[in-house]
């Protein structure tokens, strides 16, 4: 199936700004789905609110466009009701880790088989450039005109500590790497977190003098390095990319099946 067949073309042009990284990430995601030869009806794209969350409107899968921060809660209900589905949850940094932070860590703790994609552009785009829990210190935002004093979460460390059994990071520059990681994340049985660094030239780039989309994409390249690479060894301040966690742990829906089996046995005995 061609990638364009996964899109609801009637919804285009999309609402992302010129130079936004989110469309590129959507492209990587659709190619991953295409390469996995998944059926449209077996995919539920659940999202919250924000620029990233609009993805669920653009893709021709089952789509559940919910409330700000609550995508993982609704996705959990869907997955437990129909465990055979591929539930994919694209989220922005605010959606996933500010308002949705509690659901994020608890979904990871349960290790429920959902693929969470954090499209991290370090800013709230839709509402006009407010800082997020992933902005970090010293960033200019509409709600931080004197620069931020808030520390940021490291999504990889947070997801790992919370119990996610697949944790990875890539960027909107590394499109093929993103596709490859997303394929593995979707296939992984358990809670998968893929952070993909995105760029918001409109709000973040302009305020923080990172230039236009092209120069921001350059930064994805120059500020990151693959795990195990010489570049990272030489320059450990670079942001590592790759798969950090890929472990086999009991998955929540499968464990719940055991609860049911036990309860049914108790009932009959």
């Amino acid at each position, binding site marked *: 199936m061609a990638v364009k067949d996964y899109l609801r073309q009637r919804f285009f042009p999309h609402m992302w700004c010129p130079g936004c990284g989110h469309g590129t990430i959507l492209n990587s995601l659709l190619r991953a789905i295409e390469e996995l030869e998944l059926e449209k009806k077996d995919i*539920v794209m659940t999202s919250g609110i924000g620029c990233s969350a609009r993805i669920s*409107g653009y893709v021709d899968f*089952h*789509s559940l466009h919910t*409330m700000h921060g609550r995508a993982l809660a609704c996705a*959990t209900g869907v997955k437990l009701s*129909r465990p055979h*589905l591929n539930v994919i949850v694209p989220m922005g940094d605010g959606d996933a880790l500010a308002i949705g932070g*509690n659901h994020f860590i608890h979904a990871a703790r349960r290790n429920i088989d959902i693929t969470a994609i954090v499209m991290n552009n370090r800013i709230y785009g839709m509402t006009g450039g407010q800082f997020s829990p992933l902005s970090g210190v010293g960033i200019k935002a509409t709600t931080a005109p004197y620069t931020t004093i808030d520390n940021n979460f490291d999504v990889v460390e947070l997801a790992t500590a919370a119990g996610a059994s697949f944790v990875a990071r890539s960027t909107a520059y590394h499109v093929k790497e993103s596709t490859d990681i997303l394929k593995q994340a979707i296939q992984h049985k358990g809670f998968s977190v893929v952070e993909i660094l995105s760029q918001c030239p409109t709000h973040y780039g302009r305020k923080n003098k990172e230039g236009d989309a092209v120069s921001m994409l350059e930064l994805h390249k120059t500020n990151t390095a693959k795990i195990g690479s010489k570049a990272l060894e030489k320059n450990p301040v670079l942001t590592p990319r790759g798969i950090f966690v890929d472990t086999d742990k009991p998955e929540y829906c499968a464990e719940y099946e055991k609860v049911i089996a036990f309860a049914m046995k108790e009932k009959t005995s």
Partner: protein
Amino acid sequence: MALSFIDGNEAIARAAVRAGCRFFSGYPITPATTIYQQMLKLLPPLKGVCLQGEDEIASIGFCLGASMAGLKAMTATSGPGISLYSEQISFALSGEIPLVIVDVQRLGPSTGSATKGADGDIQFLRWGSSGGLPVVVLAPVDVRDCYILTMHAFNLAEQYRCPVFIASNKEIGMTRESIEIDSLDTPDLLTRKYCPEDQPYLPFQVPPGTMIPPFLPIGGSRLVRQTSSTHDPEGYITADTDIIGQVIERLDKKLVTNVDTFTFFEFDSDPDAETLLLVYGVTARAAKTAVEQMRKGGKAISLLILKTLYPVPEDFIKQCINEVKRVVVVEMNLGQYVREIERLAESQHVSHFGKMDGELISPELIQQVIAL
């Protein structure tokens, strides 16, 4: 015919399962927790899911996901939990997602008194969502009502694709009574209407002559679109003000114009009475005793026990109050449902008695109020 000695919370759980509920999630909170405990006993042996959320926000979110996947779902909490449900009640309204929400009310405001009853959430249930669209609120009087109204609640949620509240009270939820379940007048079970296979599926397209869009489950064989944003019949986000206005009007009318078909009540009318005592919830029990005693004393009085509080069954209430000159509303709050009666009354004098101190309103107090 076996008698069951159960409390209101257990009756709700048993009725829910009988109504076909196969998904429950909640967060611990007194005095609603025993509903969860009962569901834990009942659901897993039926291959149902019973899940503890990280908070109330997650719990109701799980339910909405499950309902969209096609399961009948229920959650139960008390006032502080309803506060956290608010945004998702709005989503259930706009997305037309069937859901039964039990509020075992306790004395507020805020944390209040966890083990004291009140009916302080009545207007909150009606208005506690953004947009102000109508919801269904059913108010049980006793354990028997908990059972019957829960079955109706599931039917209404399925039939109208909307959230339905059961406004219980700590006193009903945690008091055991003997009931004979087999002899209860329970409704036939209804299930949401599915889109026929030979027809195209547009998620919010309403067939001519109806007000409810047919349903298909998320994750089924045909693709489903659901969104919390204003949407057109195809389920796409829209900014078209004509379409938005039509959808909102339909969401209002689908309940308000049909409330006559689900107005539950007990009306004990005395043709000689000049006074009507109007109550709901656990207060109705004291009201029955008060009316009985007053009639023994030779006073003519009518009693209306409302069990469908919202949408307000306006025509029915008007019909009842038109029989009298004076309406006395007694409720376990400082004056909430009386507001509805005041706006419906024409020539009748409406008076109110309410208190919120954690004590039930006694039959004696009701008699004193009516004698004033």
